């Protein structure tokens, strides 16, 4: 039966050549990223955009090369992960006189965590949450207040930031359950503005001045606010925060991916695509929406708490509606319900405006233009939703080629 659509065949390579291909691709991406950050002039951005378009065009014309690379990545997953790990570990040490960019990368990392939380709501469950920044703020202020008033250690306040945000979202969700459709979006917009107004006016949150001197992270007496001395070189303090947010991002990526490849992922996707079909198949949709909403906000809250303990100073303008829109853009542009896409989206959308500083006045114009062009050419995001393959769960790897099994 010729039911399975033939994908263009990938070329067979020897293991050594395969590993070389995988490491070559990982290395090239890493070097391009480094060049993008280290070369201050604007031309590098334009050059890399042209290069990226050229590569995409070339791979489109030569699908067998794309297929070969994909096959090799599937075959040598371990090598690819090791290569990426080495690159990520080396990265901060290439930034020894570049504290500003390292800081931006750390912030991008915190947005990976937050956007993956939002992805669970918006991408997986189809719930439009336009109060991402407000929940980020709830996490940040919870952590800041607990640390300042009661002297709790940042590790504990990080967790509390997430938990308080999750719990606050449960209270917000109860009135929403009675309504349908886009009302959640409206309620979250209202919540967004209420939070900022409250932060601005409440006494104990410091009003417009916000919270100052929030203790930064420290580990067994080692303050993260110390410069790192290595090989006779002095590296900026952000190296410490970089490794912390790297760890947090990796854990969040693993958790998000595991949720995606599970019954929870299937259930949320069905609710997103067709609530009535879900209901009449035995799904208690409100329960699952609440779970997605609060778990998602847990990650957003943790990310906010990380911000508080990284920057040490938070005030209401850090948590305004525009930031919520950025978070939503990350998920939509990166790829709804696609973990890798959201990660890519977070990195691009947080670093791109910084890179566009060379055209200072026009940078948000260009930024908006890029978003529009992207959505025209890739309406489903950079990496669109992929069919769940339960990789690592079901024996026989790919379900696509599944035959038999039915006779069991």
């Amino acid at each position, binding site marked *: 039966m010729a039911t399975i659509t033939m994908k263009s065949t990938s070329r067979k390579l020897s293991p050594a050549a395969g590993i070389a291909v995988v490491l070559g691709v990982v290395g090239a991406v890493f070097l391009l990223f480094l060049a993008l950050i280290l070369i201050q002039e604007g031309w590098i951005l334009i050059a890399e955009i042209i290069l990226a378009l050229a590569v995409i065009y070339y791979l489109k014309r030569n699908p067998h090369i794309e297929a070969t690379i994909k096959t090799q990545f599937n075959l040598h997953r371990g090598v690819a992960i090791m290569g990426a790990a080495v690159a990520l570990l080396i990265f901060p040490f290439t930034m020894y006189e570049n504290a500003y960019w390292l800081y931006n990368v750390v912030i991008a990392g915190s947005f990976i965590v937050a956007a993956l939380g939002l992805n669970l709501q918006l991408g997986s469950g189809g719930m439009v949450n336009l109060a991402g920044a407000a929940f980020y703020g709830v996490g940040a202020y919870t952590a800041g207040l607990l640390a300042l008033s009661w002297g709790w250690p940042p590790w504990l306040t990080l967790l509390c930031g997430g938990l308080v945000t999750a719990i606050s979202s449960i209270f917000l969700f109860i009135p929403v359950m009675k309504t349908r459709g886009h009302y959640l979006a409206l309620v979250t917009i209202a919540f967004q503005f209420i939070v900022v107004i409250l932060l601005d006016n409440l006494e104990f949150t410091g009003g417009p001045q916000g919270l100052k001197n929030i203790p930064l992270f420290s580990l067994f007496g080692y303050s993260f606010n110390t410069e790192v001395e290595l090989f006779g070189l002095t590296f900026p303090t952000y190296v410490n925060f970089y490794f912390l947010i790297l760890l947090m991002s990796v854990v969040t990526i693993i958790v998000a991916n595991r949720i995606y490849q599970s019954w*929870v992922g299937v*259930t949320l996707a069905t609710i997103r695509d067709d609530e009535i079909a879900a209901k009449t198949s035995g799904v208690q949709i409100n329960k699952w929406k609440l779970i997605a909403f609060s778990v998602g906000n847990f990650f957003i809250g943790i990310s906010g708490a990380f911000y508080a303990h990284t920057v040490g100073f938070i005030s209401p303008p850090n948590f305004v509606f525009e930031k919520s829109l950025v978070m939503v853009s990350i998920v939509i542009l990166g790829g709804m319900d696609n973990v890798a896409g959201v990660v890519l989206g977070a990195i691009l959308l947080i670093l791109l405006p910084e890179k566009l500083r060379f055209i200072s006045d026009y940078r948000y114009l260009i930024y908006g233009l890029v978003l529009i062009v992207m959505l025209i050419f890739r309406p489903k995001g950079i990496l669109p939703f992929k069919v769940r393959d339960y990789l690592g769960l079901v024996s026989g790897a790919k379900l696509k080629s599944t035959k038999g099994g*039915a006779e069991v």
Partner: protein
Amino acid sequence: MTATTNGKKIFWTEQLTIKFGGLVAVDGVDMDVQEGEILGLIGPNGSGKTTIFNMITGLYIPTTGDFFFDGESLLGRQPYEIARRGVTRTFQSSRLCLDLSVLDNIFIGMHYRQRSWLFDAILRRGRLATEVTQAKRKALELLEIFNPELVGRAGEPAAALPQIDRRRVEVCRAMAVEPRLLLLDEPSAGMTPEETEELMADIKKVQQASTGISIIIIEHDMKVISSITERVVALNYGRKIAEGTYQKVAGTEEVRDAYLGKRGHHQ
């Protein structure tokens, strides 16, 4: 006609009525289904057939009246509770999740039987793996009944399938809940006569594969109704106008009037 019924009523309605504003869409309908029976529900467009399905599955709340499944009233129950008790349905216009794989679409029918949720998904993948493997085997078994070719396409998005296969997957999803009453809302809509015949053969196969399941089928194609149903209920303007074997119902004057227009009155 197969005599699989044992005379036990599995489902019945009592004076089922729903009003939308001034319109009485369903008006005091009494009907029942026996265990293992295939009941046809016929009537012109707008006679309230789908509305009855919507009430039985909990999507609409009846204005008055009651309905019973397995001896228990399901009035006021949530759709998910009704599905879990064993009443599932398909829809006239397909309600598959087209982006999701065929397997995922069927998995949702097994949703409430699964035990591995958030905690297992994150920290105990082994337990989840066992469940996914079992669910996959069951889903492929269901697909096999309908169309062995579908087994090979289980990992493809539902959007890649032709109309008839989408219908089949939708029936598989409803069957994955392991219902005792299956409601089929115009399964032949948008299909060629040959496809309709295939699908009806499939439905018979399903009924044989799961002993004791009862089916209510809404259908406009009278050939289908006469070939697979044991009994027929005919509706017009929300009221039951006839009931009995197809031959008997088709011979009733009210039914002829409903379909062809009353003699002497122009519609």
